[in-house]
């Protein structure tokens, strides 16, 4: 992947995430649909460029977004995105890249990330919601909308952000 371009794109997405996305979500759903665009990019990095880059990428952008919304804690998303990015990179390194598998991975990783963050907040007793409620209320819709956004982003990312040699090699192996 062209990592410099990816970083610039993700910085832009991070701004979009907090400035544009809240306006697109209807009022009734604003506490339920909270897509993490930088997390989607981390997963693309994990899929195309391996676990080490995904780890550093997730760590960096996680801490940036944590700092921006800092109300009580810094670190949950940095920790979660670093860990999930590394694991996703580990899994996708063992297989050839295919869109169906990647979407599957993104869904599972999204659930793992949000659950991890939930347990961190639970650990510091900053939330007293039940896990079942959070799953139904926030995690499930968020993961689905993240899948949709990833599908929309997939073609431009493949065209502009992945090295032509790598992407054509992938296509020949498909």
């Amino acid at each position, binding site marked *: 992947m062209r990592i410099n371009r990816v970083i610039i794109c993700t910085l832009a997405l*991070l*701004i*979009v*995430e*907090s*400035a*544009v*996305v*809240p*306006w*697109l979500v209807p*009022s009734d759903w*604003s*506490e339920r649909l*909270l*897509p*993490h665009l930088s997390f989607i990019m981390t997963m693309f990095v994990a899929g195309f460029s391996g676990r080490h880059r995904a780890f550093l990428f997730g760590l960096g952008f996680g801490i*940036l*977004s*944590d*700092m*921006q*919304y*800092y*109300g*009580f*804690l*810094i*670190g*949950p*998303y*940095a*920790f979660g995105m*670093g860990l999930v990015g590394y694991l996703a990179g580990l899994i996708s390194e063992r297989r050839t890249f295919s869109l169906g598998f990647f979407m599957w991975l993104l869904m599972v990783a999204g659930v793992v990330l*949000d659950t991890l*963050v*939930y347990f*961190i*907040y639970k650990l*510091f*007793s*900053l*939330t*007293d*919601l039940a896990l079942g*409620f*959070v799953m139904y209320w*926030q995690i499930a819709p968020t993961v689905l909308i993240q899948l949709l956004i990833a599908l929309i982003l997939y073609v431009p990312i493949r065209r502009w952000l992945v090295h032509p040699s790598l992407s054509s090699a992938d296509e020949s192996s498909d």
Partner: protein
Amino acid sequence: MIGLILFIALMGFTLGRPRLTWPERFVNDAFGTAQGALYRPVGAVADFFRDLGRLSDVYKENEVLRRTVAKYTQDQIRFNSLDAENARLKEKLSFTERQKQFNNYRYMIAQVAGATSNPYENTIKINLGSRDGLKPQMAVTTEDGLVGLVSRVSNFTSTVTLVTSLDANTAKGMPVSATVQGRETESFGIIEYDEQTHTLLMTKIDENDPLQENDTVITSGYGGVFPKGIVIGTVKSKQVGDFGLTQTATITPAAKFDHLREVFVVVAPDVEGP
């Protein structure tokens, strides 16, 4: 393993810390500027489309507003005479300058620059910072009512924690004392937020409290965090509390907490000074 320990330490360290270090301030300011440049135009476009949908209600709204304005002019006359009388009485009782200025709040308008995508930290970002005289713990309102309070201040932007994170069952709870408009001396309660039903709760109300449904609940100013007289919401229902000794009221918030564009920061006069 070392990473895990480091992160737990970082999270523990950042929990309940009042000040920001310079890298955080830098990140906040850099992103805040860019967000503000994007958030406002997008908000304007979104509002335009919502207004198109609401065009039919405008006539009715106009009617109501006209009636309200008529009422305001009457109230204004009454208020002016009461204010003058109050000032005269304070002069007679020789209040100190500090006591006179105590309830003289200043409202600073701030534009919202971004909203959170973290479900457990209900924060928004506004484009006023320590350069404009903001300090942590200042109250933030909209024209409807109380929204939250300033939690982190950097040079040009600050983070506002919304009322929706006031939950007494968790470590982040912060009590807001409240009373009822018109009966400020008789009613008293503590405001909390219920995340599952999305309403506010007023707890620890006295058994003999004359609180009724549809009463307007305002901040009482006791406790020192929030200034006096900011509208919080209206009473929806009243129940007997957990132990039967106190009562609990469900309150519909007056302000809405999403799609915010402009908020007001309430600056209390500096009571620390001599």
